[in-house]
């Protein structure tokens, strides 16, 4: 028993969560194409209205109104139940078995899925009555070029008294739409249509410009109206006297659809101009400046304006290349539409602020543009006149303050140098950095570096060094010194001999005397000429420092030369 109590208690606590449920329903599952269906989503025990994504409904149905919201609260046996209802009015778009797909409904953080609902739609059974009230979409032409204006007018024809609910406009896919006329209150006038008198009113008028794409269909407009019902039976009743009808009129809601219309897009004729940017219509272009002359570094407004009728806003004005001496700022663009016209008419303008940076005369070249004229079905080209403005020199100090350095100001007044016309050799782009010439120079340098040892090793000939050359030349040099020398002949002879020995034997010391000579030349000691040389040196020494040998003073030079020549032959061996 205790267990059951606990179970009931816990169920009671869980109750609000368990009870939360979402259902979708319609008021009828069988209807005709003109019937209005009420679609409801009920969330029970929800603390707030659910969020519903209704996009998927619009595949088969169009939503006429909604959602309207309603909250119900009930107190039954001490328990409160509440339900929140969202209601839409929808009409089918076509006949057949249509379905409202499963919708995703969010209540707080919980997500629910509704069940799909099937609705059988049959053709209207009130065809005859349709002639009393209908809407039409009228277009002024059904074959157009891309960018050419089509004027679309939705009109309502009626024979009965109605009131029109506010309506939503369809999406004009594939078109650029520019609203022309939308009345706050539809006014009616009498017309005769195929012999029948109607009252007709314009609901909406729009200028449509086809854009590139494959779908160009004038969409259908859906309108909800309330038709005043005729009371067929009238009882003479004190409470329901016809007198009160004027106060309590009975109305029937009726949904009207205009038929869809398709447009044919014509191709532009051939030879499309290169500067065609999409302008279609009739235009004229004009350029003007706000002043006739200007001082350097002052501002000037240059306005280019395009007037005419056509798809203005679907193309841009041509870019202008201003001369270099003018500094141009990005333009401010403007578009004014003429009202009270059936066609889109107006003026597009671009305003440039120009600041001349150099004195002189400057000419802004003509601005050209091409457009297609659908009336004459031909390409047209328009252009502005060239504008020439004299620019007066200003004070230089002004120019200095405009961010230019003095050098740059100097340069602004100068022109580039002329082209070079003489022929220069051509070079391949990205040719290798090292040319064969340079490589050969490097090769030769390396060869020269290694030439001496190479030559030696190849020819088996020891390359003479500088000292070798010196040794070889030593005899010649000694003879020359002896012959050309002046002063004491003994002195001369001694020094010549020592110098010769020093060079020839490549001795390191400079201070030689007979004993040292004997030591250095020990391997030649047994040679007669050598002994003779030593004897000769001793004689010279004696001659230098004493009276001995004075008799040989005249011949000592020649003797020395002879001895040296003989000695050289010995050493050379």
């Amino acid at each position, binding site marked *: 028993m205790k267990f059951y109590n606990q179970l009931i208690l816990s169920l009671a606590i869980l109750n609000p969560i368990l009870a939360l449920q979402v259902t979708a329903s319609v008021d009828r599952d069988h209807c005709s194409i003109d019937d209005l269906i009420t679609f409801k989503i009920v969330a029970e025990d929800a603390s707030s209205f659910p969020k519903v994504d209704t996009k998927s409904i619009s595949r088969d149905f169009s939503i006429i109104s909604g959602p309207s919201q309603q909250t119900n609260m009930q107190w039954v046996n001490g328990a409160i139940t509440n339900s929140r209802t969202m209601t839409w009015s929808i009409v089918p778009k076509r006949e057949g078995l249509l379905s409202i797909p499963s919708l995703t409904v969010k209540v707080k953080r919980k997500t629910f899925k509704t069940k799909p609902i099937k609705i059988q739609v049959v053709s209207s059974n009130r065809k005859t009555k349709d002639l009393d009230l209908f809407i039409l979409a009228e277009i002024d032409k059904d074959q157009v070029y891309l960018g050419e204006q089509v004027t679309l007018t939705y009109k309502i024809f009626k024979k009965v008294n109605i009131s029109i609910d506010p309506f939503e406009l369809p999406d004009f896919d594939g078109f650029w739409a520019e609203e022309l006329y939308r009345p706050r209150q539809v006014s009616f006038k009498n017309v005769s249509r195929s012999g029948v008198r109607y009252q007709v009113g314009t609901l909406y008028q729009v200028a449509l410009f086809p854009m590139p794409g494959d779908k160009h269909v004038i969409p259908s407009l859906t309108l909800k109206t309330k038709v005043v019902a005729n009371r067929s039976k009238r009882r003479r009743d004190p409470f329901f006297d016809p007198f009160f009808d004027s106060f309590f009129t009975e109305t029937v809601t009726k949904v009207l659809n205009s038929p869809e219309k398709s447009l044919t897009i014509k191709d532009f004729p051939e030879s499309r101009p290169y500067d065609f940017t999409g302008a279609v219509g009739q235009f004229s272009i004009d350029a003007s400046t706000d002043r006739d002359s200007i001082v350097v570094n002052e501002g000037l407004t240059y306005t280019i304006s395009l007037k005419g009728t056509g798809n203005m806003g679907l193309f841009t004005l041509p870019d202008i290349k201003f001369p270099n001496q003018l500094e141009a700022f*990005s333009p401010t663009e403007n578009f004014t539409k003429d009202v009270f016209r059936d066609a889109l008419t107006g003026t597009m303008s671009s305003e440039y602020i120009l600041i001349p940076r150099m004195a002189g005369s400057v000419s802004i070249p003509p601005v050209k543009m091409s457009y297609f004229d659908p009336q004459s079905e031909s390409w047209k080209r328009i252009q502005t006149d060239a504008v020439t403005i004299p620019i007066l020199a200003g004070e230089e100090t002004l120019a200095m303050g405009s961010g230019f350095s003095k050098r740059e100001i100097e*340069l602004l007044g100068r022109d580039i140098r002329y082209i*070079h016309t003489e*022929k220069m050799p051509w*070079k391949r782009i990205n040719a290798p950095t090292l040319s064969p010439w340079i490589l050969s120079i*490097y090769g030769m340098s390396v060869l020269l570096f290694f030439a001496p040892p190479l030559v030696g090793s190849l020819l088996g000939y020891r390359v003479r060094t500088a000292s070798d050359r010196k040794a070889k030349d030593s005899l010649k040099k000694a003879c020359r010194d002896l012959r050309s020398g002046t002063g004491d002949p003994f002195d001369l002879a001694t020094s010549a001999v020592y110098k010769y020995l020093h060079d020839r034997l490549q001795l390191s010391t400079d201070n030689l005397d007979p004993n040292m000579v004997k030591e250095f030349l020990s391997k030649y000691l047994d040679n007669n000429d050598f002994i003779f040389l030593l004897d000769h040196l001793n004689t010279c020494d004696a001659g230098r420092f004493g009276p001995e040998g004075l008799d040989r003073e005249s011949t000592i030079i020649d003797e020395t030369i002879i001895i040296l020549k003989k000695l050289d032959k010995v050493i050379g061996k």
Partner: protein
Amino acid sequence: MKYCIIILFLGPIIAQDIDLLFEYGNQSFINGRFDDAIDKYEKILEQDQENADLYYNLGNSYFRSHEIGKAIWAYNKGIKLSPRDNDIHQNLEIANSRIIDRLVLPEPFFLLRLYRDLKNNFTIQEFIMIGSLLLFLEASLFMNLQFGWIGNIMIRKCISILVISAMLIHGIALEKFFQEKNTRQGIIIENGVEAYSGPFYGENTVLFRINEGTLVDLDQSQEGWVEIILIDGKTGWITTNTMRAL
């Protein structure tokens, strides 16, 4: 072999063709048909041939057709080939004075400036040519010394001076070579180019706008986009058709 013969025959024909194009281009320029001149000069570039005069004339044609960015590009290309051409320098300076974005950098330290002037005054080829000639002179003096044909102390000093200068010049050439290899530069050729934070439109923000004639360093690139670095260090992505690589 067949191709060799064809190339042998074609060689002079192509050269003649290019000379003719150059002549036509010059003639068009003289007659004031600058677009035509540009067309002819660009055709020569398409044939993979260049020289400093071509870039100079191309730059002049672009300048006359008010395409300052492209003119600056052409002059810069010309200066690379012929760095001591006064005419190109003069015209580049005039073209640079017409651009909108002017960045003035502080003067560098005078030694650095001297070095840069020296480096920019010669092409790599010229540096290598001078270096190799010095090396050759040095090698021949050295050989003479080795053979003992000359043995003056002055010659020895000369050789050491030559060794040092040859090394310096080769060093500069190497530095210039690696600098040109590693840094890619480009010139913006359109006005109001928007630099994005990433290589696609969409959610990327426009970081800054630059105008034609601005010299930029190029970093990484992706299909149709390239990352640029301005001199002041700003980086951003632009589409490749708004700039021309140097």
